[in-house]
Protein backbone atom coordinates (compact mmCIF):
# COMPACT_ATOMS: atom_id res chain seq x y z
CA UNK A 1 0.00 0.00 0.00
CA UNK A 2 1.43 3.31 -1.05
CA UNK A 3 0.50 6.39 0.89
CA UNK A 4 0.54 9.95 -0.39
CA UNK A 5 4.01 10.72 0.99
CA UNK A 6 5.54 7.71 -0.76
CA UNK A 7 3.88 8.63 -4.01
CA UNK A 8 4.97 12.23 -3.71
CA UNK A 9 8.61 11.26 -3.12
CA UNK A 10 8.56 8.71 -5.92
CA UNK A 11 7.14 11.19 -8.41
CA UNK A 12 9.73 13.80 -7.51
CA UNK A 13 12.64 11.47 -6.74
CA UNK A 14 15.18 13.23 -8.97
CA UNK A 15 14.54 16.60 -7.36
CA UNK A 16 15.55 15.32 -3.96
CA UNK A 17 19.17 14.95 -5.10
CA UNK A 18 20.18 18.57 -4.68
CA UNK A 19 23.71 18.24 -3.33
CA UNK A 20 26.95 17.90 -5.26
CA UNK A 21 30.32 16.97 -3.82
CA UNK A 22 33.15 19.44 -4.36
CA UNK A 23 34.78 18.86 -7.77
CA UNK A 24 38.21 18.39 -6.19
CA UNK A 25 37.00 15.39 -4.20
CA UNK A 26 37.99 13.11 -7.08
CA UNK A 27 41.58 14.33 -6.71
CA UNK A 28 41.56 13.23 -3.08
CA UNK A 29 40.16 9.84 -4.05
CA UNK A 30 42.64 9.49 -6.88
CA UNK A 31 45.61 10.17 -4.63
CA UNK A 32 44.66 7.32 -2.37
CA UNK A 33 43.98 4.85 -5.15
CA UNK A 34 46.72 2.29 -5.70
CA UNK A 35 48.76 3.04 -8.77
CA UNK A 36 48.06 0.91 -11.83
CA UNK A 37 48.35 -2.72 -10.85
CA UNK A 38 51.87 -4.19 -11.19
CA UNK A 39 51.02 -6.75 -13.90
CA UNK A 40 49.88 -3.92 -16.12
CA UNK A 41 53.17 -2.06 -15.90
CA UNK A 42 55.49 -2.11 -18.87
CA UNK A 43 58.21 -4.68 -18.58
CA UNK A 44 61.55 -3.08 -17.96
CA UNK A 45 64.64 -5.05 -18.89
CA UNK A 46 67.41 -4.03 -16.64
CA UNK A 47 70.94 -4.20 -17.95
CA UNK A 48 73.64 -4.52 -15.41
CA UNK A 49 76.87 -4.37 -17.34
CA UNK A 50 79.01 -4.10 -14.22
CA UNK A 51 78.21 -7.63 -13.09
CA UNK A 52 78.85 -10.85 -14.86
CA UNK A 53 75.71 -12.23 -13.22
CA UNK A 54 73.44 -10.42 -15.63
CA UNK A 55 74.63 -12.35 -18.65
CA UNK A 56 71.16 -13.52 -19.58
CA UNK A 57 70.03 -9.93 -19.92
CA UNK A 58 73.11 -9.14 -22.01
CA UNK A 59 72.44 -12.06 -24.31
CA UNK A 60 68.85 -11.01 -24.67
CA UNK A 61 69.98 -7.51 -25.51
CA UNK A 62 72.45 -8.83 -28.09
CA UNK A 63 69.76 -10.96 -29.68
CA UNK A 64 67.44 -7.99 -30.02
CA UNK A 65 70.26 -5.85 -31.39
CA UNK A 66 71.23 -8.54 -33.90
CA UNK A 67 67.62 -8.86 -35.04
CA UNK A 68 67.36 -5.11 -35.55
CA UNK A 69 70.63 -4.97 -37.51
CA UNK A 70 69.48 -7.88 -39.68
CA UNK A 71 66.12 -6.27 -40.38
CA UNK A 72 67.76 -2.96 -41.24
CA UNK A 73 70.19 -4.72 -43.56
CA UNK A 74 67.45 -6.62 -45.36
CA UNK A 75 65.36 -3.48 -45.67
CA UNK A 76 68.23 -1.52 -47.12
CA UNK A 77 69.09 -4.26 -49.62
CA UNK A 78 65.51 -4.51 -50.85
CA UNK A 79 65.29 -0.74 -51.04
CA UNK A 80 68.46 -0.49 -53.14
CA UNK A 81 67.31 -3.30 -55.44
CA UNK A 82 64.01 -1.53 -56.02
CA UNK A 83 65.86 1.65 -56.77
CA UNK A 84 67.75 -0.11 -59.56
CA UNK A 85 64.83 -1.82 -61.30
CA UNK A 86 63.27 1.28 -62.88
CA UNK A 87 66.46 1.73 -64.96
CA UNK A 88 66.17 -1.64 -66.69
CA UNK A 89 62.38 -1.86 -67.06
CA UNK A 90 61.59 1.70 -67.92
CA UNK A 91 57.99 1.62 -69.19
CA UNK A 92 56.69 -1.28 -67.12
CA UNK A 93 54.93 0.60 -64.37
CA UNK A 94 53.14 -2.65 -63.65
CA UNK A 95 56.46 -4.09 -62.58
CA UNK A 96 56.21 -2.03 -59.46
CA UNK A 97 52.58 -2.94 -58.92
CA UNK A 98 53.50 -6.57 -59.44
CA UNK A 99 55.74 -6.57 -56.42
CA UNK A 100 54.00 -4.19 -54.06
CA UNK A 101 50.69 -5.82 -53.13
CA UNK A 102 51.96 -9.38 -53.55
CA UNK A 103 50.44 -10.49 -50.27
CA UNK A 104 46.94 -9.44 -51.35
CA UNK A 105 47.32 -10.97 -54.77
CA UNK A 106 48.28 -14.26 -53.20
CA UNK A 107 44.96 -14.31 -51.43
CA UNK A 108 42.86 -13.37 -54.46
CA UNK A 109 44.67 -14.89 -57.43
CA UNK A 110 47.59 -17.00 -56.27
CA UNK A 111 48.64 -17.89 -59.83
CA UNK A 112 48.99 -14.26 -60.88
CA UNK A 113 52.44 -13.37 -59.50
CA UNK A 114 53.95 -16.33 -61.35
CA UNK A 115 52.25 -15.35 -64.60
CA UNK A 116 53.31 -11.76 -64.15
CA UNK A 117 56.88 -12.76 -63.50
CA UNK A 118 56.90 -14.90 -66.63
CA UNK A 119 55.50 -12.19 -68.90
CA UNK A 120 57.63 -9.51 -67.29
CA UNK A 121 60.76 -11.47 -68.12
CA UNK A 122 59.48 -12.06 -71.66
CA UNK A 123 58.70 -8.38 -72.12
CA UNK A 124 62.03 -7.40 -70.69
CA UNK A 125 63.83 -9.75 -73.08
CA UNK A 126 61.92 -8.40 -76.07
CA UNK A 127 62.61 -4.86 -75.01
CA UNK A 128 66.30 -5.38 -74.65
CA UNK A 129 66.25 -7.03 -78.08
CA UNK A 130 64.41 -4.02 -79.42
CA UNK A 131 66.70 -1.51 -77.81
CA UNK A 132 69.54 -2.99 -79.84
CA UNK A 133 67.64 -1.92 -82.95
CA UNK A 134 66.39 1.30 -81.51
CA UNK A 135 69.70 3.00 -81.92
CA UNK A 136 69.76 2.17 -85.58
CA UNK A 137 66.23 3.41 -86.36
CA UNK A 138 66.16 6.24 -83.89
CA UNK A 139 64.63 8.59 -86.37
CA UNK A 140 61.46 6.54 -86.82
CA UNK A 141 58.15 7.92 -85.52
CA UNK A 142 56.53 4.58 -84.91
CA UNK A 143 58.88 3.90 -82.06
CA UNK A 144 57.16 6.67 -80.17
CA UNK A 145 53.76 5.25 -81.12
CA UNK A 146 54.64 1.85 -79.77
CA UNK A 147 55.87 3.36 -76.54
CA UNK A 148 52.57 5.19 -76.20
CA UNK A 149 50.69 1.97 -76.90
CA UNK A 150 52.69 0.17 -74.24
CA UNK A 151 52.02 2.96 -71.75
CA UNK A 152 48.29 2.77 -72.54
CA UNK A 153 48.34 -1.00 -72.00
CA UNK A 154 50.23 -0.42 -68.82
CA UNK A 155 47.70 2.01 -67.36
CA UNK A 156 44.78 -0.25 -68.28
CA UNK A 157 46.71 -3.07 -66.62
CA UNK A 158 47.00 -1.02 -63.44
CA UNK A 159 43.29 -0.23 -63.40
CA UNK A 160 42.46 -3.89 -64.05
CA UNK A 161 44.69 -4.83 -61.19
CA UNK A 162 42.90 -2.39 -58.92
CA UNK A 163 39.61 -3.96 -59.92
CA UNK A 164 41.01 -7.30 -58.90
CA UNK A 165 40.84 -6.23 -55.25
CA UNK A 166 37.28 -4.97 -55.45
CA UNK A 167 35.52 -7.10 -58.04
CA UNK A 168 34.20 -10.57 -57.28
CA UNK A 169 34.93 -11.85 -60.84
CA UNK A 170 38.58 -12.50 -60.24
CA UNK A 171 38.84 -15.10 -63.00
CA UNK A 172 37.64 -12.67 -65.66
CA UNK A 173 40.00 -9.98 -64.51
CA UNK A 174 42.95 -12.32 -64.31
CA UNK A 175 42.07 -13.38 -67.88
CA UNK A 176 42.01 -9.74 -68.97
CA UNK A 177 45.33 -9.11 -67.25
CA UNK A 178 46.93 -12.03 -69.04
CA UNK A 179 45.45 -10.83 -72.34
CA UNK A 180 46.91 -7.41 -71.70
CA UNK A 181 50.36 -8.91 -71.15
CA UNK A 182 50.00 -11.05 -74.29
CA UNK A 183 49.08 -8.02 -76.37
CA UNK A 184 52.22 -6.29 -75.19
CA UNK A 185 54.32 -9.21 -76.27
CA UNK A 186 52.54 -9.31 -79.62
CA UNK A 187 53.17 -5.60 -80.11
CA UNK A 188 56.80 -6.04 -79.27
CA UNK A 189 57.06 -9.11 -81.52
CA UNK A 190 55.57 -7.25 -84.45
CA UNK A 191 57.95 -4.39 -83.87
CA UNK A 192 60.83 -6.83 -83.73
CA UNK A 193 59.70 -8.48 -86.96
CA UNK A 194 59.49 -5.13 -88.66
CA UNK A 195 62.88 -4.16 -87.48
CA UNK A 196 64.35 -7.51 -88.49
CA UNK A 197 62.93 -7.10 -91.98
CA UNK A 198 64.18 -3.59 -91.99
CA UNK A 199 67.67 -4.45 -90.93
CA UNK A 200 69.03 -5.88 -94.19
CA UNK A 201 68.02 -2.75 -96.04
CA UNK A 202 68.30 -0.20 -93.31
CA UNK A 203 69.36 2.34 -95.84
CA UNK A 204 65.75 2.68 -97.03
CA UNK A 205 63.36 2.98 -94.08
CA UNK A 206 60.20 3.23 -96.19
CA UNK A 207 57.94 0.65 -94.52
CA UNK A 208 55.50 3.11 -93.03
CA UNK A 209 52.20 1.32 -93.77
CA UNK A 210 53.36 -1.94 -92.17
CA UNK A 211 54.47 -0.10 -89.08
CA UNK A 212 51.04 1.42 -88.74
CA UNK A 213 49.52 -2.05 -88.72
CA UNK A 214 51.62 -3.09 -85.78
CA UNK A 215 50.63 -0.13 -83.68
CA UNK A 216 46.96 -0.80 -84.31
CA UNK A 217 47.09 -4.26 -82.85
Amino acid at each position, binding site marked *: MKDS*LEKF*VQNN*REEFDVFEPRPEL*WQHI*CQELPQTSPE*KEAKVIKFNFGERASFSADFFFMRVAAAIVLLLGCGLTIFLMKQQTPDTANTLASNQSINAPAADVNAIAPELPEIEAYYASQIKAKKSELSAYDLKVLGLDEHQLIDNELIRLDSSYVSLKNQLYTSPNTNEIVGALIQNLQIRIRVLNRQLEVLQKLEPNKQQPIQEPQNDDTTNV
Partner: protein
Amino acid sequence: MEKLGYQDVNQQVVQRCKGGDHRAQYELYKLYSKAMFNVSMRITNDYAEAEDVLQEAFLSAFRNMHHYKGEASFGSWLKKIVINAAINAVRKRRAELVPMDERSVAEVPDEVTEDDSEWQVEQVRRAIQKLPDGYRVVLSLYLLEGYDHAEIGEVLGISESTSKSQYSRARKKLLEIMKEPQFVA
Protein backbone atom coordinates in the same frame (compact mmCIF):
# COMPACT_ATOMS: atom_id res chain seq x y z
CA MET B 1 13.43 1.67 -8.55
CA GLU B 2 17.11 1.32 -9.42
CA LYS B 3 18.31 2.90 -12.62
CA LEU B 4 18.38 -0.37 -14.51
CA GLY B 5 19.84 1.12 -17.68
CA TYR B 6 23.14 1.65 -15.91
CA GLN B 7 23.89 -2.02 -15.55
CA ASP B 8 24.57 -2.81 -19.20
CA VAL B 9 26.43 0.43 -19.80
CA ASN B 10 28.69 -0.24 -16.86
CA GLN B 11 29.62 -3.82 -17.58
CA GLN B 12 32.72 -2.89 -19.58
CA VAL B 13 33.69 0.02 -17.36
CA VAL B 14 33.44 -2.21 -14.31
CA GLN B 15 35.66 -4.78 -16.00
CA ARG B 16 38.27 -2.12 -16.75
CA CYS B 17 38.05 -0.91 -13.15
CA LYS B 18 38.88 -4.38 -11.94
CA GLY B 19 42.12 -4.05 -13.89
CA GLY B 20 42.92 -0.83 -12.03
CA ASP B 21 42.15 1.51 -14.93
CA HIS B 22 41.96 5.05 -13.47
CA ARG B 23 39.99 6.41 -16.41
CA ALA B 24 37.31 3.75 -15.94
CA GLN B 25 37.23 4.52 -12.23
CA TYR B 26 36.69 8.17 -13.01
CA GLU B 27 33.87 7.28 -15.40
CA LEU B 28 32.09 5.39 -12.63
CA TYR B 29 32.76 8.24 -10.21
CA LYS B 30 31.27 10.77 -12.63
CA LEU B 31 28.25 8.55 -13.15
CA TYR B 32 27.49 7.87 -9.50
CA SER B 33 29.11 10.53 -7.33
CA LYS B 34 26.15 12.88 -7.26
CA ALA B 35 23.52 10.25 -6.46
CA MET B 36 25.80 8.63 -3.89
CA PHE B 37 26.68 11.94 -2.33
CA ASN B 38 23.00 12.66 -1.80
CA VAL B 39 22.50 9.24 -0.22
CA SER B 40 25.39 10.00 2.09
CA MET B 41 24.12 13.50 2.75
CA ARG B 42 20.65 12.30 3.75
CA ILE B 43 22.05 9.84 6.25
CA THR B 44 24.81 11.97 7.77
CA ASN B 45 23.05 15.32 7.36
CA ASP B 46 26.45 17.00 7.29
CA TYR B 47 28.26 18.17 4.17
CA ALA B 48 31.84 17.52 5.28
CA GLU B 49 30.94 14.16 6.76
CA ALA B 50 29.01 13.21 3.64
CA GLU B 51 32.12 13.94 1.56
CA ASP B 52 34.33 11.86 3.83
CA VAL B 53 31.84 9.03 3.52
CA LEU B 54 31.72 9.36 -0.26
CA GLN B 55 35.50 9.28 -0.53
CA GLU B 56 35.76 6.31 1.80
CA ALA B 57 33.00 4.47 -0.05
CA PHE B 58 34.50 4.96 -3.52
CA LEU B 59 37.94 3.93 -2.32
CA SER B 60 36.50 0.86 -0.68
CA ALA B 61 34.48 0.05 -3.81
CA PHE B 62 37.54 0.34 -6.10
CA ARG B 63 39.65 -1.75 -3.75
CA ASN B 64 36.99 -4.43 -3.45
CA MET B 65 35.98 -4.43 -7.10
CA HIS B 66 36.84 -8.13 -7.33
CA HIS B 67 34.06 -8.83 -4.81
CA TYR B 68 31.50 -7.35 -7.18
CA LYS B 69 30.19 -10.33 -9.15
CA GLY B 70 27.45 -8.50 -11.02
CA GLU B 71 24.53 -10.23 -9.32
CA ALA B 72 23.02 -6.79 -8.55
CA SER B 73 23.45 -3.61 -10.54
CA PHE B 74 26.71 -1.82 -9.84
CA GLY B 75 24.72 1.17 -8.59
CA SER B 76 22.97 -0.77 -5.86
CA TRP B 77 26.23 -2.52 -4.89
CA LEU B 78 27.91 0.85 -4.54
CA LYS B 79 24.90 2.30 -2.74
CA LYS B 80 25.11 -0.40 -0.12
CA ILE B 81 28.75 0.52 0.54
CA VAL B 82 27.83 4.20 0.79
CA ILE B 83 24.92 3.52 3.15
CA ASN B 84 27.04 1.33 5.41
CA ALA B 85 29.83 3.90 5.51
CA ALA B 86 27.35 6.69 6.24
CA ILE B 87 25.62 4.75 9.00
CA ASN B 88 28.99 4.02 10.59
CA ALA B 89 29.81 7.71 10.47
CA VAL B 90 26.55 8.61 12.21
CA ARG B 91 27.13 5.86 14.76
CA LYS B 92 30.54 7.26 15.56
CA ARG B 93 28.95 10.64 16.05
CA ARG B 94 26.15 9.37 18.23
CA ALA B 95 26.41 6.39 20.46
CA GLU B 96 22.77 5.62 19.98
CA LEU B 97 21.51 5.73 16.43
CA VAL B 98 17.81 4.97 16.69
CA PRO B 99 16.20 6.91 19.50
CA MET B 100 13.77 4.61 21.20
CA ASP B 101 12.23 7.58 22.93
CA GLU B 102 8.54 6.84 23.22
CA ARG B 103 7.73 10.41 24.11
CA SER B 104 8.38 11.61 20.60
CA VAL B 105 5.61 9.31 19.40
CA ALA B 106 3.22 10.38 22.05
CA GLU B 107 3.82 14.00 21.19
CA VAL B 108 2.86 13.50 17.61
CA PRO B 109 -0.85 14.09 17.12
CA ASP B 110 -2.49 11.28 15.20
CA GLU B 111 -4.81 13.40 13.13
CA VAL B 112 -2.13 14.97 10.95
CA THR B 113 -3.82 16.05 7.79
CA GLU B 114 -2.03 15.16 4.56
CA ASP B 115 -2.82 17.80 2.02
CA ASP B 116 -0.17 16.58 -0.43
CA SER B 117 -1.31 19.07 -3.05
CA GLU B 118 0.58 21.77 -1.18
CA TRP B 119 3.80 19.82 -0.73
CA GLN B 120 6.96 21.15 -2.26
CA VAL B 121 10.03 18.98 -2.83
CA GLU B 122 12.23 21.55 -1.14
CA GLN B 123 9.89 21.70 1.84
CA VAL B 124 9.81 17.93 2.28
CA ARG B 125 13.57 17.69 1.81
CA ARG B 126 14.29 20.33 4.45
CA ALA B 127 11.80 18.73 6.83
CA ILE B 128 13.64 15.39 6.44
CA GLN B 129 16.87 17.17 7.32
CA LYS B 130 15.28 18.43 10.52
CA LEU B 131 14.39 14.91 11.68
CA PRO B 132 16.52 13.38 14.44
CA ASP B 133 19.25 11.06 13.14
CA GLY B 134 17.44 7.78 13.79
CA TYR B 135 14.21 8.84 12.17
CA ARG B 136 15.94 10.51 9.27
CA VAL B 137 18.00 7.42 8.44
CA VAL B 138 15.06 5.02 8.48
CA LEU B 139 12.79 7.38 6.60
CA SER B 140 15.41 8.20 3.97
CA LEU B 141 16.31 4.56 3.40
CA TYR B 142 12.65 3.65 3.02
CA LEU B 143 11.34 6.62 1.09
CA LEU B 144 14.28 7.70 -1.02
CA GLU B 145 16.66 4.74 -1.31
CA GLY B 146 13.87 2.28 -1.92
CA TYR B 147 14.94 -0.13 0.81
CA ASP B 148 12.24 -2.31 2.35
CA HIS B 149 11.99 -2.81 6.09
CA ALA B 150 13.81 -6.13 6.00
CA GLU B 151 16.79 -4.48 4.26
CA ILE B 152 16.70 -1.50 6.61
CA GLY B 153 16.66 -3.88 9.57
CA GLU B 154 19.70 -5.64 8.11
CA VAL B 155 21.83 -2.53 7.58
CA LEU B 156 20.87 -0.97 10.91
CA GLY B 157 21.03 -4.16 12.91
CA ILE B 158 17.45 -3.86 14.07
CA SER B 159 14.40 -6.06 13.50
CA GLU B 160 12.03 -5.58 10.61
CA SER B 161 9.19 -4.61 12.94
CA THR B 162 11.37 -2.03 14.69
CA SER B 163 12.15 -0.55 11.30
CA LYS B 164 8.44 -0.41 10.49
CA SER B 165 7.50 1.32 13.72
CA GLN B 166 10.48 3.69 13.45
CA TYR B 167 9.37 4.60 9.96
CA SER B 168 5.76 5.33 10.92
CA ARG B 169 6.98 7.50 13.80
CA ALA B 170 9.43 9.26 11.56
CA ARG B 171 6.70 9.83 9.03
CA LYS B 172 4.41 11.37 11.61
CA LYS B 173 7.19 13.55 12.89
CA LEU B 174 7.97 14.68 9.36
CA LEU B 175 4.40 15.76 8.69
CA GLU B 176 4.41 17.52 12.04
CA ILE B 177 7.57 19.42 11.11
CA MET B 178 6.01 20.43 7.84
CA LYS B 179 3.16 21.99 9.76
CA GLU B 180 5.56 24.25 11.61
CA PRO B 181 5.22 27.96 10.74
CA GLN B 182 8.58 28.27 8.91
CA PHE B 183 7.71 25.31 6.67
CA VAL B 184 4.32 26.52 5.63
CA ALA B 185 5.28 28.52 2.61
